[in-house]
């Protein structure tokens, strides 16, 4: 199933959810030419924001991605409060909800290093390119090496354009 990034971002923004776009979608925002199939966000771990997140995604039947059907997974404030990071599939596609991101920490930690974007008619936060590289480096996954190389090349090209 393909992921409706526009639908997910609009749903979260219109629901008043405080979140920061990270991962491949953030890389696209910075100029990456790589295809991505899910939306990764860091969400603020306050009770009010968790409620808004649960309410916003409820119509789209969030469920644990890759898990067998029929597990007793309840999409609720309590479930999100007790957990931290969730890899989900919804009727809008795949979304990873991160309470914390390796190398970056919580929403509050990375918010100062994020940009406000006007995307699909709504304002949302996107992790800045330097920190995107930092968290990808910190994750240390071989699958990210090419993505990191591209992000660093984007920074170099930007500097070249600015000079």
């Amino acid at each position, binding site marked *: 199933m*393909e992921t409706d990034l526009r639908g997910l971002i609009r749903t979260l923004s219109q629901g008043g959810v405080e979140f920061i776009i990270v991962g491949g979608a953030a890389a*696209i925002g910075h100029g*990456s030419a790589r*295809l991505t199939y899910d939306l990764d966000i860091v969400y603020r771990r306050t009770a009010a924001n968790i409620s808004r997140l649960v309410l916003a995604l409820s119509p789209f039947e969030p469920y644990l991605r890759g898990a067998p059907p029929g597990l007793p997974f309840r999409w609720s404030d309590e479930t999100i409060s007790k957990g931290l990071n969730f890899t989900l599939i919804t009727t809008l596609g795949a979304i990873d909800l991160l309470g914390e991101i390796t190398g970056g920490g919580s929403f509050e930690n990375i918010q100062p290093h994020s940009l406000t974007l006007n*995307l699909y008619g709504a304002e949302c936060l996107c992790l800045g390119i330097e920190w995107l590289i930092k968290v990808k480096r910190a994750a240390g996954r071989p699958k990210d090496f090419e993505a990191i190389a*591209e992000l*660093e090349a984007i920074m170099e090209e*930007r500097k070249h354009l600015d000079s």
Partner: protein
Amino acid sequence: MLEDATELEPDPVIEAYKKDIDRTLIRENLRLTVEQRFKNLERLQEFAKEIRRAVKEQSDRGN
């Protein structure tokens, strides 16, 4: 958590990968707005879906 995002020490592994990056695509993307970049992604997703469907159709015909 990482304290400082201003200094990125070159990583020899990443530098090796960087040699193969197509910078012409990056330069094209940097000319676009963020929203235009996301619209391009949507078109790419559509293309990926369509070409996979076509390959599967061809493969099914061959069986």
